[in-house]
């Protein structure tokens, strides 16, 4: 049974107070429209210790776990979907550096990241190919003690503002191995890196998303994370954490939309009685609450198992993410419907929550990927046909 510890409850409470005090609806509306990142709030949140709680204290992290990270992420997204997501994603893929990088590299990048000076980005998808890794084309070639990278990556979050990229590259020397990929850190200042902003999206509009071209980009050998031929394996491990974080965002978004809908139906009268007294409204709320409760339970369960060191979590994390995104999209859609015309207007916030829910489903590893992870785990080996 999942239950929060006292200190976890304390963190949740502090996060709640922070968002109540710092996150402003009108400002957020404006920033979302203009596609601006909430830098000031990021720095405040970082300073107060709300970000990077699951990073080692050595690198200015919180020294806690994914459960604590989920609590904060959920609370932030519940108050403000777009802002919560922007803050949660500012260090996207930096867990790869944390878990697999060498000390030198970590010392070089993590403290700057964790102080809010730079962002990080993950380059894992390719245009028109998505996460079908076997078809990936980006390559890294070892030449005179350096890695030379060529290729184009897609759907790179934070790409326009990142201090470094984590890039999945084929390695010619590993072609015959089961995992012919390397995971390499590329400094954004490197010659030959050109991100091209994808512009406005359905949601996630406080962070940039871009295609990033690598044209003879040369980085020191030490920028390889882990060993050669471990790229996919490391990526799959990272995706566990990434799925957990996305799930927590989605749970927060769903809960936030639910909160607003509940407030509305308790106040709004139609045909002589409060909307909340109509059976159909009540059933909708019951369904929404059930879905949220289940998604939350799944999310925290997998986070807690992660923190305990459980390794066989890829499919459970995928379940949590997939389900939480479905929940968030459905709950936000229903919240808009419960608010009626008001729900369609920007000032209601729920339309923005809905768009950010959709963005969570689309941009942070699509559903098809989760399904295949789950399927391969549960089906296991099939006798040759």
């Amino acid at each position, binding site marked *: 049974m999942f239950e929060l510890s006292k200190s976890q409850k304390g963190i949740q409470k502090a996060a709640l107070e922070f968002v109540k005090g710092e996150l402003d609806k009108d400002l957020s509306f404006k920033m979302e429209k203009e596609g601006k990142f909430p830098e000031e709030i990021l720095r405040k949140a970082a300073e107060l210790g709300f970000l990077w709680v699951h990073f080692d204290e050595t690198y200015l992290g919180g020294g806690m776990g994914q459960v604590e990270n989920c609590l904060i992420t959920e609370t932030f997204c519940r108050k403000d979907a777009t802002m919560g997501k922007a803050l949660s994603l500012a260090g996207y893929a930096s867990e790869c550096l944390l878990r697999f990088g060498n000390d030198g590299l970590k010392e070089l990048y993590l403290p700057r990241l964790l102080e809010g000076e730079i962002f990080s980005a993950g380059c894992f998808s390719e245009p028109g190919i998505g996460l079908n890794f076997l078809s990936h084309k980006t390559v890294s070639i070892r030449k005179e003690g350096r890695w030379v990278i060529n290729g184009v990556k897609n759907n790179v979050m934070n790409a326009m503002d990142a201090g470094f990229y984590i890039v999945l590259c084929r390695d010619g020397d590993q072609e015959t191995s089961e995992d012919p990929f390397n995971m390499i850190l590329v400094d954004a200042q490197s010659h030959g890196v050109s991100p091209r902003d994808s512009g406005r999206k359905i949601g996630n509009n406080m962070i940039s998303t871009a295609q990033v071209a690598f044209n003879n980009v040369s980085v020191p050998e030490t920028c390889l994370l882990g060993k050669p031929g471990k790229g996919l394996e490391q990526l799959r491990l990272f995706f566990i954490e990434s799925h957990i974080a996305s799930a927590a965002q989605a749970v927060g978004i769903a809960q936030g939309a639910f909160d607003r809908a509940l407030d509305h139906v308790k106040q709004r009268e139609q045909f002589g009685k409060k909307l909340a007294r109509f059976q159909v409204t009540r059933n909708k709320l019951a369904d929404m609450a059930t879905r949220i409760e289940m998604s939350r339970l799944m999310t925290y369960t997998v986070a807690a198992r992660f923190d305990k060191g459980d390794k066989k979590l890829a499919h459970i994390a995928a379940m949590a993410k997939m389900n939480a995104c479905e929940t968030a999209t459905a709950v936000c859609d229903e919240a808009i419907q419960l608010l009626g015309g008001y729900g369609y207007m920007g000032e209601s916030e729920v*339309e923005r929550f809905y768009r950010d829910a959709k963005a969570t489903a*689309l941009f942070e590893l699509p559903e098809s990927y989760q399904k295949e992870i789950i399927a391969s785990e549960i089906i296991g080996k099939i006798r040759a046909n």
Partner: protein
Amino acid sequence: MEIINYTDVHHEYRHRFRSFLETEILPHKKEWDNAQLIPKKIWKKLGKNGFLCPTVETAYGGAGNDFLYSVMIIEEIARVNYLGLFAYLHSEVVVPYISAYATEAQKHSYLPGCVAGDIITAVAMTEPDAGSDLASMVTTAVEQDDHIIINGSKTFISNGVNCDLIVVAARDPQEKNPHKAISLFLVEADTPGLKKGVQFEKMGMHSQDTTELFFNNCKIPLSSRLGPKGAGFKLLMNKLQQERLVCAVSAVACSEFCLEWTVNYFRQALADKSPLAMSQASQFALAEMVTELKMKKAFVNGLVVSHMAGENVILETSMAKFSTTDSAKRIASRCMNLLEEMGGVEDVCPLVDAFNDVRVLSIYAGTNEIMKQIIAKELLSSPKPF
């Protein structure tokens, strides 16, 4: 089996409108979306080319065409993914009140302008505290000497910034029976005492202007009443069939746009042997959605024919309205899923706009919950087999 039989003349009109959209409208979509307004001169251009109010009788400056012309306009606008060009509200929802209920004098003074695009119309029913519940409306209209004084506020007025003429529903405070208290009025937008509020920011339909309207001792001549006194509720109800039917037509056409775009993308991707398009699951999803679309379209087309024949299909139209608008939401959203990360990027995927636009369809023209209430009531209270 073709349910609607379009003639060559119809087809010609459709093609002409499609070209018009491509040359005169679409190049400006982004600009107008940003401005949150379609310039009045475009309305005039639409009118001049015969694309507004196609069914208005020739006696009042119209072309006197059949309702299929209206259907084609609605479909083509949706098929170019531009629901924000919300001309059908004017042509098929508001102006029909005038065509049906106005006096000869009112018709002569307004209809030619409506057809020409010189007069843009809006309808003011909804109030801040009375969404779907018309009976609880509080805006009053009081006769005083030879005038009528309107007080109150209305919200979610589509075409609210642009409108020149508004069909306003207001109640006689003396009459307690809500079904007898409401009258309709034709209020010109520059009448003193009428103020347009600030424009709403919306999820989609960005080119379309939505505002509140405030009536503060707004004084209109007695002759501005539209239809009989106290008949407002009934008049509004009478026009619901067409309002909901055009909403369904629009929803189906928009779903068709989404699917067509996605299927074409997959056809190309399959030709390119892209892994995305090889997905059996995505292919099944397309099969399911095309099936859903075809069934709904067959039903709606049947209703168009019935509507044109003057049949009472308000029940079936309520069914079509909720069902097609739910479909449109589902289809837009599911198509985006099939396209994965590119599905969410505005510049490369028009489904983002569609997703944002269609979300309103299940809310306006009577929420889908109201539709179900109507259907259930009729279903259970009538002894008829269905």
